[in-house]
């Protein structure tokens, strides 16, 4: 590193810009969370003040927890996201391995076929998906969502992972073959561990849209027992339009679990994204 690259005024300016943007990014979340813990009068009187002993009130949370089964919604979201993610990564990596490792007739064509889904959003097939799910009695099951999200995530996963797998040395795999490992063992024990950073990248880009999706839960699984957090919060907030304590509390309840999960995993996520793009 040469010394010409940093100067004090420039780094002060950089911090000023980044800090300003950080405030813009976090301010709305901050406002919601602090106000959810205040009494109704304080919410309207001093929306920007922190809750004090005088204004502290958890009435909103009590209303929300009595009314809706947030725990169940959260569990549904978690199951759908984790299971879909698992299948996207497993099936995607398997297909990517087949495409990148073996030369066979139709390899190119198969790659293009699987990549088609990157450009065309699955949402446009909703009409037929709903008919299919209705015909197989899968409406209002978590399985319907898992199937849709797995299909949705596969094209990008296969594409990114096969790019990465091309860069794994052939010598390593051939050494494995000479040692008598089966193709399956080579895939699971040699190749998979090496593409872990790429898997993290794929995981991030697969996970966020699944967790946040409102469209398919609304259409395929709107029943009480299969509601996801996103859909639950949406319907829930609608019922309480005038009860500001409850609205703010349900927003906080929807934000906090994701926020905690994100902060726990953020290091891995960011490393995954940057490692992924850097190769």
């Amino acid at each position: 590193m040469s010394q010409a690259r940093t100067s004090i005024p420039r780094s002060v300016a950089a911090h000023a810009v980044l800090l300003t943007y950080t405030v813009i990014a976090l301010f709305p979340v901050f406002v919601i969370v602090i106000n959810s813990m205040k009494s109704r009068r304080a919410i309207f009187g001093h929306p920007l003040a922190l809750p004090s002993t005088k204004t502290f009130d958890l009435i909103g949370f009590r209303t929300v927890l009595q009314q809706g089964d947030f725990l169940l919604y959260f569990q549904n979201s978690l199951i759908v996201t984790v299971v879909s993610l698992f299948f996207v990564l497993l099936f995607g990596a398997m297909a990517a391995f087949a495409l990148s490792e073996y030369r066979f007739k139709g390899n190119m064509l198969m790659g293009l076929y699987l990549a088609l889904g990157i450009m065309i959003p699955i949402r446009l097939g909703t009409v037929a998906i709903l008919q299919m799910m209705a015909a197989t009695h899968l409406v209002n099951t978590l399985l319907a969502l898992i199937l849709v999200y797995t299909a949705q995530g596969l094209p990008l996963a296969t594409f990114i992972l096969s790019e990465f797998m091309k860069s794994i040395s052939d010598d390593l795999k051939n050494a494995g073959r000479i040692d008598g490992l089966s193709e399956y063992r080579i895939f699971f024990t040699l190749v998979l561990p090496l593409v872990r950073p790429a898997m993290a990248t794929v995981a991030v880009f697969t996970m966020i849209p699944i967790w946040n999706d409102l469209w398919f839960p609304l259409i395929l699984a709107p029943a009480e027992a299969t509601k996801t957090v996103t859909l639950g919060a949406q319907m829930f907030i609608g019922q309480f339009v005038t009860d500001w304590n409850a609205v703010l509390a349900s927003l906080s309840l929807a934000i906090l679990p994701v926020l905690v999960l994100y902060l726990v995993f953020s290091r891995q996520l960011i490393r995954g994204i940057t490692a992924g793009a850097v190769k």
Partner: protein
Amino acid sequence: MAEPTPERRPVRWHIAVFLAPAVIVYTLVMILPLAGTLDLALYRTVDKAQHFVGIANFSKLFGDPNWSGHFWNALGNNFWFFIVNMAVQNPIGIALAALLSSPRLRMKTFYRTAIFIPTILSFVIVGFVWKLILSPLWGIAPDLLKMVGLRHWFAPWLGDPHYALTTVALISVWQFVGIPMMLIYAALLSIPDEVIEAAEMDGVTGMSQFWKIKLPLILPSIGIISILTFVGNFNAFDLIYVAQGALAGPDYSTDILGTFLYRTFFGFQLQLGDPNMGATIATAMFGIILVGVCIYLFGIQRRLRRYQF
């Protein structure tokens, strides 16, 4: 699979095993329904029976005053939504990434983590949070403007047909700025030190170094971000549905193709659902996205020069 020497190369079943799960799920749940949508757009339901009508649904969508008004309005709005996203989100994302990648900057991890937080929040949260903040009732936005002496600037932006669409687009920018930031940041990190050092030897530093050296090197990433923004924006639905409802008010001023498709297919209030017209709109969206992606692939991506290190 069919190599000329079958005894040395038996059928390699493992290739099929590796491919099968992905291909089966993808074909059944994605490709067949998409094909089904294209097909449904060519029919009309009369007395619960499907009648083939060719492209009549499309001429209805583009030409019949009952439909075309809504369609062109939604398409125009969708373009504006995309333009705002491209013009605001991506430059901000690139600028933040450029700042983050400056060497010896402290608290990098903190900034990166914090700025990415809106991206992990669901549309439901984002929509409601901003609705509350911009609400004239609660007064956070007016209060904040008052603090900087601009109280008279405040308007109920989400409720005004002139501003609502731009406001929603800016909310979407706020939410997704983390994605271009991350991707560009990664691209900037992958520029080798030797290139930067060579530039410094020649006296190219600071801003001019960014414009002349780094920007050309990250152009392919900017291209990828643009096409992701395009596809994402032309499929947008959630944010508008949450913030403005399925009617995409006020007065359809925030109606984009996604909300139009939802209302048409499922029906809303007095309007009955119409799967055939819904499929027609979905097919039109499919066409628009395909044209956009082709323009990018054949018109832009080919001209981008890639550098290998």
